[in-house]
């Protein structure tokens, strides 16, 4: 059974037959749907909207935070590197201003300066060289034998002479270790330019960069403007390798942008062109890694949303179903009592009519009775016609007819009297026979055979005589309508349990179709429409059986007959009116 089917069924009372929609004042399925949709919409739409906004806002906040952090790392690192290079550049600048070309050409003096530089600036300085205007290295102190080397053809040499300063890319050079060169221009006493050239190890950069802790599987390294790695990287190749990412455009400030990596992964790239150097500092992070804390928060939000939606829907479905069901039950009770009142009024009218008819007929009947009796008395006591069997027969026939008419009026009076609710002792067999008495003539005319079998041990019932008789009358009436002439009606009564009696009324009539069987207790359902059927008979029978605390059950097969079983308690606790 589907979920919806379960809810639909819940609108039906237990044990109660399904009813036609027209029985009800409202369409309950529509009310239920409307309630669920409205309350569900009003509570769920804002919840989903707020959660979505919250989700987006949090994602945005975390992304901004990530970009801010990246920017900060890039800026700070850039400052450190810039400071490192500038400091050394300024030192060289100071040396060329403080020392004459001649003194710098003194090997001892230059050697002492290199020692001082190494001592004052820590790591970095590897060697020092003085190059004259013709490009010849005039003096050199350091671990390599480079004295007398000719730099005149090299581009950097011209650049120093032109602009006064030069910082090289990282390169291997003659030394076969990665290093970079800072060169500054000096002026000899005679106004001829010369160059002081220092080689710096890249180890301090590498140490600085490798010490940086960057979140999100981050990588910090430097490239030159051609995209060649200047320092080793963790995930993007070794020094002097070509970077697998495009070289970002030059900007005066720190920039953060999103790029697709070589494996189509989302990357956050922060970079900055370091002023006065050929270097670009880059911080590359994996976005997925950075957003990990966010995925956990986002998941929590979604779980919260799903749990809330489930709880809200459950509560809405539950309360709607419960309330609509309550309204429906109230409506059913209302319409049932309305029918009951209608029926009671109708029966009361019939009762009054029956009583007055009986009264009006009884008086003339009594006169006929006495007159005919007197005629018979004359015959009997006068002896004149006593021997005339024909006349005596006529008088007897009149008296018999009067007696019959009297029985009918008495039955009518009983019927109207029984409309008043009262529990009284009843012989079931008498009650059945009394009901059949109403139908006796029709049974004879149509040749219907009625068989009554009441068990010997049947106790005296204590129940409402009027209601019991109406129940029996309604069902026997239906049986009469169902059977064809010459049909059979079988009425059996037996002790069902210790305190219950079962009355079975079976006929071999036309039967009831399966579709109709579920609807026969519905008010106004009739297959005899247009033939005087009101469709109230079985609906009222159903109510009456319930009122005397009993139950009614029907089995039927089309063309074979119908079998009603009425179970009633021997002692009716209290009759409901």
């Amino acid at each position, binding site marked *: 059974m589907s979920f919806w089917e379960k809810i639909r069924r819940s609108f039906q009372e237990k044990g109660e037959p399904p009813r036609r929609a027209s029985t009800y004042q409202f369409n309950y399925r529509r009310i239920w749907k409307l309630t669920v949709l409205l309350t569900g919409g009003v509570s769920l739409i804002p919840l989903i909207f707020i959660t979505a906004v919250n989700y987006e806002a949090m994602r945005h906040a975390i992304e901004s935070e990530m970009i801010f952090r990246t920017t900060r790392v890039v800026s700070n690192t850039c400052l450190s590197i810039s400071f490192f290079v500038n400091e050394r550049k300024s030192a060289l600048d100071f040396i060329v201003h403080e020392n004459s070309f001649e003194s710098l050409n003194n090997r001892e003096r230059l050697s002492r300066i290199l020692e001082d530089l190494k001592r004052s600036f820590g790591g970095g300085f590897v060697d020092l060289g003085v190059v004259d205007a013709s490009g010849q290295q005039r003096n050199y102190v350091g671990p390599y034998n480079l004295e007398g080397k000719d730099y005149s053809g090299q581009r950097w040499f011209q650049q120093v002479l032109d602009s006064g300063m030069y910082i090289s890319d990282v390169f291997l050079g003659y030394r076969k270790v990665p290093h970079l060169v800072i060169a500054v221009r000096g002026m000899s006493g005679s106004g001829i330019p010369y160059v002081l050239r220092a080689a710096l190890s890249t180890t301090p950069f590498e140490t600085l960069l490798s010490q940086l802790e960057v979140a999100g599987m981050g990588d910090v390294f430097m490239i030159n403007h051609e995209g060649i790695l200047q320092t080793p990287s963790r995930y993007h190749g070794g020094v002097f390798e070509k970077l697998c990412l495009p070289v970002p455009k030059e900007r005066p400030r720190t920039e953060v942008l999103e790029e697709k990596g070589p494996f189509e992964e989302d990357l956050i790239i922060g970079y900055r062109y370091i002023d006065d150097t050929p270097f670009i500092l880059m911080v590359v992070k994996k976005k997925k890694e950075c957003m990990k804390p966010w995925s956990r928060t986002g998941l929590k939000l979604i779980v919260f949303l799903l749990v809330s939606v489930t709880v809200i829907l459950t509560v809405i479905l539950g309360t709607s179903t419960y309330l609509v069901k309550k309204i429906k039950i109230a409506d059913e009770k209302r319409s049932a009592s309305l029918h009951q009142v209608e029926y009671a009024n109708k029966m009361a009218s019939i009762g009054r009519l029956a*009583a007055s008819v*009986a*009264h009006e007929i*009884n*008086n003339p*009947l*009594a*006169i*006929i*009775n*006495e*007159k005919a*009796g*007197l005629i018979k*008395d004359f015959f009997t*006591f006068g002896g004149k016609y006593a021997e005339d069997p024909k006349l005596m027969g006529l008088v007897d026939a009149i008296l018999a007819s*009067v*007696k019959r008419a*009297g029985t009918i009026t*008495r039955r009518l*009076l009983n019927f*109207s*009297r029984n409309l*008043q609710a009262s529990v009284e002792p009843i012989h079931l067999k008498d009650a059945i026979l009394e009901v059949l008495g109403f139908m006796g003539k029709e049974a004879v005319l149509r040749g219907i055979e009625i068989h009554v079998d009441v068990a010997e041990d049947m106790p005296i019932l204590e129940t409402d005589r009027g209601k019991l008789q109406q129940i029996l009358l309604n069902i026997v009436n239906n049986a009469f309508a169902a059977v064809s002439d010459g049909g059979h009606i079988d009425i059996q009564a037996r002790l069902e349990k210790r305190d219950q009696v079962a009355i079975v009324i079976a006929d071999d009539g036309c039967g009831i179709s399966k579709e109709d069987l579920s609807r026969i207790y519905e008010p106004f359902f009739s297959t005899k429409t247009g033939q005087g059927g009101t469709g109230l008979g079985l609906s009222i029978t159903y109510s009456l059986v319930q009122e005397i605390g009993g139950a009614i059950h029907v089995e039927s097969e089309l063309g074979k007959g119908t079998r009603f079983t009425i179970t009633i308690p021997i002692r009716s606790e209290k009759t409901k009116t």
Partner: protein
Amino acid sequence: MSSIRVLLVDDEEELVSTLAERLSLRGIHADWTTHPDDALRRLETCKYDVAVLDVKIPRMSGIELKKQMEKKCAHTKFIFLTGHGSERDFRVGSQEAGPEFYLVKPVNIEDLIEKMNQLLGR
């Protein structure tokens, strides 16, 4: 054993006169009247053993008539007849006369005589 003396009171003259005649044929002394005042007047001599009253007589109910008659003549017994038999009538009639002396019309004359004998303990 002397014959029973009966007074029949009913607004239907045809019924009450015929009934009286039939009772007479059976050796029962029966007088009849359709008027309650006449009935009371006849009772002054107090010669009736049984009074058979219709529950509904014009101008005075059978029950009221019974009460007045009882004042005049204590030993007279009563049987009620009714053509109606409504619930209320039945209850009142049964109380006044006892359920077995409350008869619904039309009555069998033999039944009526039997009830009289029962009342008089004969």
